[in-house]
């Protein structure tokens, strides 16, 4: 092998090494991105699940077992949250929508285990429930109304951004 060929071979080896490094870096970035997206999707799913769980409940503790005819009959703003006998650790026992307000200062931690691996992800959820204006759902009301907004935030150490989902649940029923 002559000197020229030796040079070509060395150059080719260098090119291959650079390509492998670049591709490897790309793989790592892709892996990180996919993991990030996986966390994102799971976070959105968790937020969606929490909202769906909340809106299947009666609008208010006062409408669980009786109809109300005035917003003033509803739970006061300061009392939004769980009632006596309910526990934030037992959401299955909640009896009305605003019971989920108990998560607002003390994040509820959910554990998700990936199937087929030993990895466990911890997602924390923070939920806040407020009355909102009947004319503008983005305005929090200082008095009870027929409309409550639920705000769900989900975060996890592996997540770059906090996922935030929100919707309004109003008092109505049609039979």
């Amino acid at each position, binding site marked *: 092998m002559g000197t020229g060929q*030796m040079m*070509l071979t060395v150059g080719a080896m260098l*090119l291959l090494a650079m390509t492998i490094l670049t591709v490897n870096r790309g793989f790592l970035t892709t892996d990180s991105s996919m993991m990030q997206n996986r966390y994102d999707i799971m976070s959105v799913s968790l937020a969606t699940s929490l909202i769906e769980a909340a809106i299947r409940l009666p609008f208010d503790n006062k409408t669980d077992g009786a109809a109300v005819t005035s917003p003033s009959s509803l739970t006061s703003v300061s009392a939004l949250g769980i009632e006596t006998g309910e526990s934030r650790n037992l959401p299955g026992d909640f009896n009305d929508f605003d019971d989920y307000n108990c998560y607002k200062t003390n994040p509820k931690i959910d554990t998700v285990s990936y199937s087929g691996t030993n990895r466990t992800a911890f997602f924390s959820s923070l939920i806040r429930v407020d009355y909102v204006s009947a004319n*503008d759902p983005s305005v929090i009301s200082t008095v009870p109304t027929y409309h409550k907004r639920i705000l769900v935030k989900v975060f996890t150490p592996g997540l770059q951004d906090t996922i935030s989902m929100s919707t*309004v649940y109003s008092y109505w029923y049609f*039979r």
Partner: protein
Amino acid sequence: MGGKASLFLILGFSLIFMTAGNHFHRMALETTDNAVSYYNQSKANYIANTGVNMVINKLFLDAAQVDGTFNYNFDAGSCVVTLSTINAYQNIRQLLAVGTFNNTTKTIRIVLKPSLFSKYAYFSNSEGTNINWTTADTVWGPFHTNGDLRVNGYPVFHGKVSVGGKEVKVSGKAKYLGGFQKGINIAIPTNGVTAVGGNAEASAIFTGKPLIYLDFRGDSIRYRFNTTSAWTYKLASTFAPNGVIYAQDAEVHVRGNVKGQYSLAVSGTSGSTGQIFIDDNIYYNTDPRTNPSSTDMLGLVAKRNVIITNNAANNSDVVIQASVYAETGSFTAQNHDTRPYAGIIDLYGGITQKTRGPVGIIGGGGISNGFSKRYRYDERLLVSYPPFFPGCGSFEVVSWLE
């Protein structure tokens, strides 16, 4: 030669690596797009749901809410909700909500129609203090009471159950196969009978006749105003062209073979007026139980009570095929507690009553006086109804499309 070969070999490997890297890179981008799309669609959906809730609450509070468009800004997105009437005659309303977030839109389309009492298999404003639903009771179709539902045994409810109060468990456990909902109050109107009667054509309105005997006879109807006078015969389709028969301040005795669709409304609040007495079997010309395509349908709409008469014809079973409505009273049997055992009430339809009325007395291990019950819901009432049957004053969701 060896150097060139190795160069080509390495270039080949590089090409493979770069192609694979490109695929992985594209996969990462698509995964990101997927996550972002999922997020945007979820947000847009909840924004649309917010608009739906805001407007549907308006309709809940005021059934006469006028059509219009409502705009909301919420959670960094926006929502446009359009409330429109798509069938003015039947007052069918549509709610179209379009939620937008980051150029992603989600549409929710809801159709609502007036809710009528005829749809209930059973409705009561009050269940009384000590009347229980027991093991022998099976209810098909929608059930509602504004009071408490007392369970003493293992009754089965096949349709959705809603209560204004709560479930009181004396013993046992009810089966709610169609779901159970608390805190729902549906008031019986005070003008339900007159509202039905107001639609009657002049030919089908009785006034100044405190006592009326009315027989359905297939294509014809006959009536008289005491038990000894001659009958007056009418062709049913010309007598009550829109199906509504209205007796003002009267006591009406009814029976017969119903062919077509009719509502018999009876007003009156004093004496024995405002009551419908069922003197004998009243049944459809084409029995929907054997022929589901039957279009025969009857509404018995009384201001006070709908009563099974205590007479010879009703002493051994009675057949009632109708949707019964007793605005301020009950569906009951005359002398239910003193008459002998009279067999079975074979009711096919539904019952709406202010207060649950008795039809028999339990004693000696069975029914000692009056009737035992065999009630079956006419499932056609879920989608159809007797003419101008009283409404609940609110709507029901016919479809919800997201």
